[in-house]
């Protein structure tokens, strides 16, 4: 076969595989959405009837609602703590000497690099001594530690792309480092900070393994409840909960993409 023909066939195979993989990725993610609207009491696809009964089951269940409340509160407070702490840390690292920065950088990405199960076991035993197991405070502290690397990495890369001369200019004009940071640098890396905040929120909301060991009772997160439920049987209510979670995730994703676009417009 001649070269042009060969190329065309190769190209065709590539397209087929590409589309198949994309399909493989998106299908299971979105398939829970139609299932959640099914009227049947067992899981079937495609659903033969339309009903909101599973949403009713979700919103009227005290356990599911308690879990939702716990997770949302934890996620919000985690974001509120992790975002400023992480931003300041990123700034401090950015301005430090390379030696300090490289050492601390490794430390700071540990929560992402170390397998979560080990962190969960470790935190569980630490909390056992401090009496923090099954408390909201304990969950928030653990989630914050997990979310910090995401904020730090995001803000640090934003600082790399930022013309630091502007902060120097502000200081040459009479602004102290703190004033220059607040009035000049922060408004310009705010897109990175916002992205970091979104990441922190989603990380906390979706966190499973640590929550599984450390949250419980009244303070069980929704992820823990979902996990325990899935272990036993396939409750269609989870389809409804999943759809709600998908909406939150996609909203966050859209938010981040919009931030990215606004940043480029301003340039």
């Amino acid at each position, binding site marked *: 076969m001649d*070269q042009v023909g*060969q190329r065309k066939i*190769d190209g065709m195979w*590539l397209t087929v595989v*590409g589309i198949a*993989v*994309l399909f*493989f990725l998106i299908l*299971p*993610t979105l*398939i829970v959405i139609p299932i959640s609207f099914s009227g049947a009491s067992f*899981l*079937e*696809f495609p659903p033969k009837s339309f009903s909101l009964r599973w949403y009713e089951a979700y919103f009227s269940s005290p356990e599911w609602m308690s879990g939702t409340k716990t997770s949302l509160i934890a996620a919000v407070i985690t974001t509120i703590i992790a975002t400023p*702490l*992480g931003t*300041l*840390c990123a700034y*401090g*690292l950015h301005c430090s000497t390379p030696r*300090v920065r490289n050492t*601390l*950088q*490794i*430390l*700071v990405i*540990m929560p992402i690099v*170390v*397998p*979560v*199960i*080990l*962190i969960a*076991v*470790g*935190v569980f*035993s*630490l909390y056992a001594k401090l009496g923090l197991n099954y408390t909201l405070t304990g969950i928030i502290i653990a989630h*914050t*530690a997990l979310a910090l690397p995401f904020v730090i*990495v995001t803000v*640090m*890369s934003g600082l790399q792309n930022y013309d630091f001369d502007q902060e120097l200019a502000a200081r040459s004009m009479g602004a102290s480092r703190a004033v220059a940071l607040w009035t000049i640098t922060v408004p310009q890396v705010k897109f990175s900070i916002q992205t970091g905040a979104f990441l922190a929120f989603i990380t906390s*909301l979706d966190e*499973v393994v640590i929550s599984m*060991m450390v949250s419980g009772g009244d303070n069980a997160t929704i*992820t823990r409840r*979902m*996990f325990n439920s*899935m*272990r036993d049987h*396939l409750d269609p209510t*989870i*389809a409804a909960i*999943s759809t709600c979670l*998908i909406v939150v*995730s*996609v909203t*966050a*994703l859209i938010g981040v993409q919009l931030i990215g676009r606004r940043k480029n417009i301003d340039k």
Partner: protein
Amino acid sequence: MSVTDIKDITQNPRNVKKLKAEERRESLTFLGLSMPAVLGILIIVFLPIFWLSSLSFYDAKGALSTENYARIFESALYKRTFVVTSQISITVTVICVLLGYPLCYWLTKMKDRTASILMIFVLVPFWTSILVRTYAWLVLLQRKGIINSSLVSLGIIDEPIQLAHNLTGSIIGMVHIMLPFLILPLYATMRGIDTDLVRAALGLGSTPRKAFWHVFFPMSLPGLFAGIVLVFILSLGFFVTPALLGGGRVQMLAQRIESTITIYSNWGAASALGVVLLLLAFVMIWLMNRVFGLDKLFMR
């Protein structure tokens, strides 16, 4: 020359102490800004794991010993866990490469705008909760699920096959979770490859296939390697998906650690297993740093 000038000259070199003090003060300020975050991570992540790891060096009576390590390396149960975990991790990694590489290559061949839009198909799963995705696979793979019913109606099989609550289901689920972790660094690297180089190869008389293998593929290796290492580490320590999709038949390292504690309260063995997992993770990270460079993580 005034009196002050003479005094200045004997003070040679000038102001060194003052300048060094200023430098120290500044370094400490920056360190101080980072400290809350760093301390938080140290206390929550480092300290407990450190302490747990040290636990692994004490036997049940509290004396220093390597009994725990001997146990896990000799016991058939734990040996099987290591083997199963490695096998699954390697399988998942290989499948991810086979699926992910062509996808990334396909994406680089199209216009940037189209590729960005198609990337949504990768980003949405990536941002979706792991529980949601695992649940979806539970639904899809069950005996009455859509995959089985389609296969039956297409005539490929006569009876529904067991796809969930076993090894197959675990692997399918894990591949689905891991794939974006391979795609994102690989695609980023591929986008940075200068297409002029491939065109130059074609211009010099190479066939498209040879140009790909000799020019493009080698340049995509750093990103591929980063993705492979990432997927492998995550697979080694994976908990949620194998626990839910494995139906109890699949016990990977993470699950073994959890059950050793919650069911058997055997902290010695669990901590030894944990240390092994940790070491494996660190070796992988070190490898990734050598080839890809951790710095790239911090730069866009």
